[in-house]
């Protein structure tokens, strides 16, 4: 019963903050909204016994990602007059139609059954503890885990390359 309550509350929070994020005029509020959504999702993870994922969710998203976002928001200025204001009406209508349509389509498609996969291979009531996840992660998924090195390298290198504004750039532009 308590599970139900928790779910209802945090589902509502998630939805509410998501809507807030989308509709807030000020990007800071949007960021806050996103933060809220992520937190509540983390809680839901806990409900789903995915503790490790929940933890990572909090650390990575709430910790790193959001900070970055806020940082950038601050960097480019909160109140950048032309950045706000009402969207194009046509765009608005289309947005509503599309998002509602998407949701409706998925739910309609799923109304019969959401999870049709077989749980033959599954362990009955799965508990996403660290060791369970990790021996999967470092067992089956080792290669993939290693491959993320690429992603991180790219992230690092790319950011450097993009953020690189040196005097050289100026003259290098001149020669382009």
């Amino acid at each position, binding site marked *: 019963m308590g599970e139900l309550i928790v779910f209802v509350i945090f589902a509502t929070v*998630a939805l509410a903050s998501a809507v807030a994020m989308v509709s807030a005029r000020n990007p800071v509020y949007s960021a806050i909204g996103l933060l809220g959504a992520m937190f509540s999702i983390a809680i839901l993870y806990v409900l789903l016994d*995915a503790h490790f994922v929940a933890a990572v969710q909090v650390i990575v998203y709430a910790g790193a990602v959001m900070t970055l976002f806020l940082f950038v928001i601050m960097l480019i200025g909160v109140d950048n007059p032309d950045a706000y204001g009402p969207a194009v009406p046509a765009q608005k209508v289309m947005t509503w139609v599309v998002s509602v349509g998407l949701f409706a389509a998925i739910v309609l498609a799923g109304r019969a059954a959401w999870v049709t996969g077989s749980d033959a291979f599954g362990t009955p009531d799965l508990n996403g503890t660290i060791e369970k996840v990790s021996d999967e992660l470092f067992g089956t998924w080792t290669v993939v885990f290693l491959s993320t090195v690429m992603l991180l390298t790219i992230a690092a290198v790319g950011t450097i390359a993009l953020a690189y504004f040196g005097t050289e750039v100026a003259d290098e532009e001149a020669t382009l």
Partner: protein
Amino acid sequence: MIITTTWYLVLAAALFSIGVSGVLIRRNALVMFMSIELMLNSVNLTFVAVSKDLGLVEGQVAALFVMVVAAAEVTVGLAIIVAVFRRKASANIDELAELKG
């Protein structure tokens, strides 16, 4: 009453749709990008919920990888936005419509 996986999945679908709407309706590159992050989160929710339902831990692992990817994406994405901002002094993507036709 007991909450089935369906609830989670419907919630995820809803969040996803909201995310989509955010991408479509906002003019601020940052907020658009946030919406995309939201979409990724909802996907993660789906993964985890399904993994719970099927008892397959793969779902959770997948969620972790998505997070890694998201992190990298965020870094690069924000770098791009910053770079744009440094030249145009604006994050309003409606002003970036020079390339068309």
